[in-house]
């Protein structure tokens, strides 16, 4: 098996369980804050499965950044598109957003802004670390 695929599956299996945990926490918060809040069995089951898949894909997709033979733009694009596809499917399947192109457009815009904000934070942090390390090199 390709080592990157193996790494994708390995990471996915380790962190996939966090998805349902987050779902449980969100459910708990909603049930305390919204009066008469309840979810049906099918809805809850779909939420658990889809958030598991989401966490699986999210953690596994980090492997794209480590394929050294790929140019950076390609790995970044693959990472972004995989996450976008996973999040969009999860949100639509659970009816967290309606199947409406205007809503999808807003969702896409928010997704892109958050993705690049997170990327910028990571990049700046790594840049600062590299600067500190370089100052110690003779």
């Amino acid at each position, binding site marked *: 098996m390709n080592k990157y695929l193996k790494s994708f599956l390995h990471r996915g299996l380790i962190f996939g369980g966090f998805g349902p945990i987050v779902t449980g926490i969100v459910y708990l918060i909603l049930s305390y804050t919204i009066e008469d809040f309840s979810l049906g069995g099918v809805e809850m089951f779909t939420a658990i499965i889809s958030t598991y898949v989401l966490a699986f894909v999210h953690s596994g997709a980090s492997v794209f950044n480590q394929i050294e033979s790929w140019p950076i733009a390609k790995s970044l694009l693959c990472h972004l598109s995989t996450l976008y596809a996973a999040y969009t499917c999860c949100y639509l399947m659970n009816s967290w957003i309606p199947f409406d192109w205007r809503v999808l457009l807003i969702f896409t815009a928010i997704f892109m802004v958050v993705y690049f904000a997170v990327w910028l934070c990571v990049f700046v942090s790594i840049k600062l670390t*590299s600067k500190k390390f370089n100052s110690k090199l003779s």
Partner: protein
Amino acid sequence: MKCKIIIDKNRDEEVFVYAHEKTKLVEEIENLVLGNSLELIGYKDREAVKLRPFEVCCFLVEDNRVYAITDDDKLLIKQRLYQLEETLDDSFVKINQSCIANINKIQRFNASFAGALLVVFKNGYSDYVSRRKIKTVKERLGVKL
């Protein structure tokens, strides 16, 4: 610090350092001397080549084989990476699961757009520092945490 070198072919080669305390310079001299005394055997085209650790930029694993990357060569090493890690001195640090880098051969650190910390060696070869190894590299370089 004074420095005196005596060339005498009739005596065993040895280095004495008299110092008030163990400074970075003393450690570097120690590493250099000890590094010089350790010899490895590298293989290229089935020919054995003597190799001193200070000549190596990094040791890396590729296809389950360990290689030493020098300034202008790539030699196969028969030891496993963990064995090298135990033998090598403090000028070497493991930067990811499959690479041990020689700090003295690092040209610079770079931030990659993929969000990884890259090490660029003086010979142009580059590899990334894994997140779990950043702390070790920090400590080894003496960067305050």
